Structure formats: C-alpha cells, structure tokens
C-alpha cells in the first residue's frame, strides 16, 4: 500500500495537480506517526500507512490554502465530505487519496494489557485479526479488537467511498457496534445523580487546552462560542461546570458533522472520555434523522439546510 501511495503522491506533486500532500510519516517516538505536509515530491518517500495513523487530516484542509492531496482513512474521508457539504472546502481543491483501514491501535489499551508504558513496549504488530505485543522477551497475542480504538470497532466505513484514488489493500472486518458503545452503555446504566457526579469528576480535570476542538474537523467555526466575551457564554476559568458546558455545547455543535473519528478523545491530555458524548450524539442523529454525516457530498447538511415546507415555523 505504502509504495502505491508514495508513487501516487509524488506524481500528483510532479504534475502540479496539487500544491501539497497531506499524509502521515513516522513519528519521533515509538509507535507514533506524525502528519506530513509537504510540497516536495522527494519527501513523499517518507509517507507511511500503519495502524498508528491516528490524526484526522481533514482538519488541515480547513487551513492550508492551495490544492491538497489528502491521505484519508474512511472516517477522515467522511470528515472531508462533511466539510464539502458545509461548504467549508470545495471538492475541486481536494484530491482524496483513500486508504482502506483495518482499525487503529489504541496505545492506552496496549499499555494496560502489557502493564507497561508506550516507550517500554518494544513491538506492536498486527497480524490479520490478532495483535502481537512484545516487551523484552515476552510476547502476548491478543485479538485485534481488544486493542483497537473504540471508534474503530464501531467504524461504518472502512474503505472510503468518496475518493480520487483508492489505494488497494485489505480492510479486515472489525465491526462490533455493541463493544464500541461499551462505555456509553455503562453510563446509561447509572442513575442521573451518579452520571452527574461522574461527569463532574471527569470535567474537574479538564485543563481547557482546547486540543479536542483544535483536532476536530467538525469544529470549523472562525469564532468559537467558548472564547466570545460579548456576551460571554462560558467562563474561561477552568472549573468543572464551565468545562462541562463547553463540551456539552461542542457536542451539540458537531452533531450531524461528527464522523466518530475519535480524535477528540485520543488527544485529551487528561483522558476525559469525550467520545461518550460525541458518539451518543452521532447515534442520536442517526436515530432521529436517519442521517450519517459525511456519507454523501451531494446531500444537504443536516443542521444548516432547511426547506420552505419545514414543519417548524421557527425556521420557515
């Protein structure tokens, strides 16, 4: 897959079809990758495809001007489509280099299973539907589903359907929607009081770094409510109440746009289970409006399109 991707990316730059390629390169730390944004065709030789390519590169489509060739997993391709639907980017400016995906590895799950931290783990290798974790001379083989991200297990589009080039490769069936909603199910079993104190505890440690918002391609507002001061919707002071309101409003604002890429939860430096909010919104949108974000570039966006025949007089 990598060779095909590199060749295609180099070709796009060479022909001048795109100004930049946005893809993944190996990271500077073990088991990590890093976004590679380059206009230099020689650098395309460092493009990689592996189970650690976590970033949703659609985010960069919002800020880099020029024509982009973006490497996109299923969820990323949906975010790109969603941005096209919302008229944040134009289809013609983007060349989608789709890649099939068998799920990404959640290092936190690996760390837990291995009882070691990321840098103490020597190897994490995917072999079909198994993952082999090596620490020193000890090897541990676990089902892939045990170490893939929750959102990957719930993935509804392992192979992008909107693309300009589709890199050929396997996409091992990984779907287990039940397991992907495990945390949400636990939350739903709590009493409202228990749930309230659960979230209070979670948001107590939010440091308001806004990484969750910054990585999110659905968070494309030029001005975010959280920083508005006239009027001030949320206090900038990090207190659990305001941290919670920030996230609750964010979850509502991305409803119908969120593609369950899981990035917000992955990047949170204090491990707040943000996907429990965004995924619940995602499923509610599915149930209530029979709508899946980013599946059809031609479809009107859920939240911002309206018709003169709408039932609600408010928007008519």
């Amino acid at each position, binding site marked *: 897959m990598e060779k095909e991707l590199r060749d295609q990316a180099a070709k796009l730059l060479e022909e001048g079809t795109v100004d930049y390629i946005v893809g993944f390169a190996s990271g500077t730390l073990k088991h990590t990758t890093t976004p590679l944004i380059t206009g230099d065709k020689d650098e395309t030789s460092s493009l990689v495809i592996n189970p650690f390519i976590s970033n949703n590169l659609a985010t960069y489509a919002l800020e880099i001007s020029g024509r982009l060739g973006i490497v996109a997993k299923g969820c990323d391709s949906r975010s790109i489509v969603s941005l096209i639907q919302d008229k944040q980017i134009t289809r013609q400016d983007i060349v989608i280099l789709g890649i099939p995906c068998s799920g990404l590895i959640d290092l936190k799950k690996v760390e837990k299973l291995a009882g070691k931290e990321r840098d103490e783990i020597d190897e994490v290798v995917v072999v079909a539907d198994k993952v082999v974790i090596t620490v020193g001379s000890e090897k541990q083989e676990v089902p892939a589903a045990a170490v893939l991200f929750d959102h990957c297990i719930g993935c509804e589009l392992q192979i992008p359907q909107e693309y300009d080039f589709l890199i050929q490769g396997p996409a091992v069936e990984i779907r287990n929607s039940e397991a992907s909603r495990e945390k949400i199910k636990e939350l739903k079993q709590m009493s409202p009081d228990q749930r309230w104190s659960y979230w209070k505890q979670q948001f107590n440690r939010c*440091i308001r770094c806004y990484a969750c918002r910054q990585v999110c391609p659905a968070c494309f507002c030029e001005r975010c409510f959280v920083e508005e001061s006239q009027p001030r919707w949320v206090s900038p002071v990090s207190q659990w109440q305001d941290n919670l309101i920030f996230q609750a409003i964010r979850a509502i604002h991305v409803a119908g746009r969120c593609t369950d890429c899981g990035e917000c939860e*992955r990047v949170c430096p204090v491990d707040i289970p943000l996907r429990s909010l965004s995924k619940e919104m995602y499923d509610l949108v599915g149930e209530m409006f029979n709508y899946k974000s980013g599946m059809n570039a031609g479809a009107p966006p859920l939240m911002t399109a309206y018709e003169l025949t709408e039932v609600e007089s408010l928007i008519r």
Partner: protein
Amino acid sequence: MITKKVSKKDIRKLLGTWNQECNVIVPSRVDGVVGMAAWDNQDISFLDWYRNTVIPPKSCFLPKSEVMMSFKKNENGYNLEVPTNEHWQVIFGVRPCDARANAIIDHVFAVTYDDYYYISKRRNTLLVGLSCTNPYDSCFCTSSNIDPTESEYVDLMFTDIGDDFVIEDFTGGGKALLNMSNTLKKVTKADIDKIKEVKAASVSKIKKTVDTENADRKLGSLFNDTDYWERISAKCISCGICTFLCPTCFCFDINDEMIRKQGARYRGWDSCSFRSYTRMPMENPREEKWRRVRQRVCHKFEFFPMNLGINACVGCGRCIRSCPVNWDITQVIAGLPAEAGIKSGK
C-alpha cells in the same frame, strides 16, 4: 552533601513524620492522570510506577486556576478577601528537570517581580527531589545540561540504590526535614560507590539528545524567515497542550466571575499557542500560526538565554509525549540551519 540513607520500607514512616508537621505532596494518579497531590498518609506504591507527572509540579505554585480574591457586595461597597497560605508543604518526588523548571519560573514570579500568589505558596514549600531511574524515550534533559540524578534546586535529593535511597541535603530546610526523622541510617563507603554507579547508569538511559549550542544565535538570525517558520509550524494545531504541560511555561489570564453580587477574581493558565491569546485587551499580535510557534521556540531557546543566560526548556519531554501531532521541539532545534560565522560546538 550525602549524609544519610533511608530504607525503602521506611519511606512511609519518613513521609508520615513529615506529614505531621506539614502537607506532604506526592506523585499521584488522580482519576488516572499523574500529577502532584496530597499524600493519603498511606500509599507509597508510586515508588514502583512513578516516572514523571503529566501535570507539571508548577501547578503547586501556579495552578490551572486559583482565586486571587473573592468579593461580596455590602452596604458600603465590597468586602474583599484575599486567600492566605500559611501551611508548609513538602513536595516529594520532584524530578531534576522539573526542579530546574521551578527555579526558572521563580525568576518570573519571585525574582524580577514579587508575585504574592506564587510566593505565598513557594516560600512555604520544601522540594524533595528523586533521581530518575527509568526516563522516557522523550526525555532529553542531558541536552539542557541536567543530570537526571542531580539537582541544585531542591532541598533534599533521593537516589534509589536498590534497597535504600541515598539522601543528599542542600539546604537548611532539607537538614531540618532530616532531623525530624529517626528512621535514617548512615551511608557507607559501599553506598557511595553504588550511587556513582546508579548515576552513571541513569545518565546513559537518556537516549534522546539535541545540540542546543548556539540555538539562540541561530534562532536570532532566522527570526524573519517566514518561509522557515511556516514550514515548521504547518502541522501544529494550536492547542494548549505543550504550553500548559510545560514546567517552565507561565502565561496566565485573569478573569472576574460574579453572580448575584458576589464572586471572585481568578487566575488561570493561558497559552501563546492560542489564536485568542491577548485578544481580550486588544488583538493577538501573533495572529498567524507560524508567529505563535516561533514565539514558543524562541522564548525557550533565544529570549530566555538572552535575558537570563539559561534555556527555558529543561528537556522534560512532556510537550513531545502529549502533542496531538508529534510536533517535536528537538527536531526543530536540531534542524536549525547553521548560521554563517558561528563555529559549532565545543
């Protein structure tokens, strides 16, 4: 000076003795996130798992948010109340990088300016350092001339030599802490040999290195190279992680909260990475992302050395470990183009 040692099994007793006189703060997992938090007078399991905190110890003096004063309306105006801080605390387990970082922040809040809120916590604090024996792959303290087993910025320094910790004391406060305890033992000649061994081994475990020599001058000559900074900053997403978690970053923001005629003035962390930085009083002079990234790099490696003769990066590696896009400051420093006329290295 190395004088005493304490057996590992006596650590609970030692901390317990201190905890009777002051608040003992230790590395703790609070809801899964490692930071410095009040000791429960019992649990010392951190000795087995603790490598470094996610939330840096600066938060003991400059918390993510704190009350500067509370106010309440009365007939004549407002009642103001300013929090005081009289209790003593001992922070146990400070790593050498973070100890240096505290000293760097001291310059800002306690040397060039007397910041009441910072000083009121800092002056009542004794720092007990703990040598690193299991650094992360992202630690590069040795490149900032820090030895992971030594610190001149703590009151006491503990080094693990197997069954015991060897203790070095540096200050009167440190000596006072030692005098409070009767669980300490004398160090032997063999211990001294062992500590040398341990220290050498720890240093050799730091694998990430970067040549920071002349970084300030190189950055100075690159300052106006927009293309360079645009390239370097491209993948950064302008979040607050690297600055909030950096033990030497100290930007803050002040906000008043008032509901029904009473409220408080808060101070909390702010970040030069944010696009909204300083937008409240005016505009952000660093509207473009590359200017913000340049600020972070230059503040650490050019402005601080220029003003205080010391790099404001201690090589703790937090910003690399936690960055959502693996933006690695060592890569940037290593990749600085050599400036004509600067001879490299010693």
